[in-house]
């Protein structure tokens, strides 16, 4: 097998302690990384060490541990900066998750810049977390939310998007990769065209960050968000990248300690750069864990990870396509390793329950993307999402479990 020479997936699996366990007496075939990814030992160790050996609050004390903790926390920010190729660490804000990152931009940038009648362009592919924050700010400001359609393959309709862009467009917020059907959107073209129309762009990179190299300066994107737990890091840590000049002009999102310059009851002035948006004690250990996770994926390398995942996608697509009455939802030309499918006459929840008993963990439901489900006229799908640790045996387990669903339903 060709991929084994360059990519030792069995060695990678040994980096993740969870794969030594069984589920319902079967080896775990985990294909739900799109919801949240498993954690390698290096991340678990980094978290354990941060609590056991170096823990103290950051940016406060002058004592030794506070200094070490601050260096580790800020070191994680530098790891994230380098990973995203951002120009400065001041452009990297740590949040709770991608959802909070988007809400921050919607409330702060949107609140300061949107006027009645202004337009916010999203797409049909969006996760609810890249819809609802915009609806909230639109309601407050009188702006209007519009969705760029997708075609029958699940492809972002670039031509229609170009027609929808206009002088009223103030913000474009689009996903880099669809969480539900895997479509990779043409983000570079989307960003360029938005800039030509005078709009700023937020890209939701939650599904992209675990699968591909992301480069802020190459994309020339204004805001980019992702969440730590999908990139093999801890929960409770998210990232917002924002261009420095935009962040400087934005009002704070949350108020509190750490985000101030000077507080009096008459007037408070705010800290500069990322600190303005990090009120209160931040997710210190989670950030350190995220740094370890990013180092881990970069050591393997996204070229190799991408090639391995594309091999799995092709294999799974081929194998699943041979199952009678199985329909793959979303057949975009450029797809990440995410396969959504339905079985005629069998509800995805029943699929999920039955395959689970075979140790197969997949997501079933609307994937927090109900407008997308409506587009394909389904209430829900079953979704297998792959990551760097999946192997062909996982795909085989999925295929055999899906066949047992059909057996039970007769």
């Amino acid at each position, binding site marked *: 097998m060709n991929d084994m020479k360059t990519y030792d997936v069995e060695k990678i699996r040994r980096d993740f302690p969870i794969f030594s366990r069984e589920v*319902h007496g*079967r080896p775990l075939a985990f294909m739900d990384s799109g919801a949240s990814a498993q954690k390698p030992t290096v991340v678990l160790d980094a978290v354990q060490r941060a609590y056991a050996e170096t823990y103290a609050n950051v940016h406060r004390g002058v004592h030794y541990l506070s200094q070490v903790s601050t260096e580790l926390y800020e070191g994680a920010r530098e790891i994230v900066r380098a990973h995203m190729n951002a120009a400065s660490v001041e452009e990297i804000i740590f949040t709770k998750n991608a959802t909070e990152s988007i809400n921050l931009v919607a409330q702060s940038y949107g609140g300061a810049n949107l006027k009645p009648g202004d337009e916010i362009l999203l797409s049909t592919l969006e996760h609810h977390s890249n819809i609802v924050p915009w609806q909230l700010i639109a309601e407050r400001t009188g702006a209007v939310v519009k969705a760029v359609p997708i075609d029958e393959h699940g492809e972002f309709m670039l031509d229609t998007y170009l027609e929808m862009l206009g002088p009223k467009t103030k913000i474009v917020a689009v996903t880099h990769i669809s969480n539900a059907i895997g479509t990779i959107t043409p983000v570079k073209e989307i960003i360029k065209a938005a800039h030509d129309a005078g709009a700023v762009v937020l890209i939701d990179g939650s599904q992209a960050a675990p699968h591909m190299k992301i480069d802020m300066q190459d994309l020339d994107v204004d805001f980019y968000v992702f969440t730590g737990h999908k990139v093999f890091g801890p929960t409770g840590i998210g990232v917002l990248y924002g261009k420095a000049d935009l962040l400087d002009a934005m009002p704070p999102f949350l108020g509190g300690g750490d985000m101030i310059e000077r507080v009096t009851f008459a007037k408070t002035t705010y800290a500069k750069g990322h600190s303005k948006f990090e009120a209160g004690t931040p997710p210190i250990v989670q950030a350190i864990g995220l740094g370890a996770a990013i180092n881990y994926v970069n050591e393997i390398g996204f070229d190799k990870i991408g090639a391995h995942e594309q091999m799995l996608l092709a294999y799974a697509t081929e194998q699943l396509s041979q199952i009678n009455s199985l329909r793959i939802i979303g057949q975009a030309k450029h797809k990440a390793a995410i396969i959504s499918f339905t079985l005629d006459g069998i509800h995805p929840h029943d699929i999920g329950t039955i395959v689970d008993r075979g140790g197969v963990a997949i997501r079933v439901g609307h994937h927090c993307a109900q407008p997308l489900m409506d587009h394909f006229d389904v*209430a829900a799908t079953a979704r297998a999402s792959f990551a760097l640790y999946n192997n062909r045996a996982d795909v085989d387990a999925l295929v055999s479990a899906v066949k047992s669903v059909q057996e*039970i339903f*007769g």
Partner: protein
Amino acid sequence: MLDDLRELYQEVILDHSKNPRNFRHPEDANHEAHGYNPLCGDTVNVYLKLGHNGLIEDAAFEGKGCAISLASASMMTDIIKGKTESEARQIFDGFQKLVKGEENDFDAGEDTERLMMLAGVKEFPMRVKCATLAWHAMTSAMDDKNEVSTE
């Protein structure tokens, strides 16, 4: 692997889900409620025709859902037809305990055997809401609350 699953997806359940009984919208229904499970997006509309003394003269439903929720709605409408409101509520009370695994001596009179078909749900806690969605909608319809969500 298959024992629990065979218990859950018995022939009777699959039959009710593939050919649901009372799957219609009666024109003379005088109470109805919409049930929604935000977790999976499943929906059910329950229609009741309530007569004098709380007699359920007709019960029907429409909706989209998994095998468990469709079968449960189908059986429910069959069972409550001809019973009184308070009898229907009492059956639901026991049934809810049954699928949550809180009831070992489930007794719903002549309907006990039929409802026991759904007892397999208790091994699948994530699916309890599927089994009870239509029942919640039924009580909402009786109470003239038009919406019910499982959350």
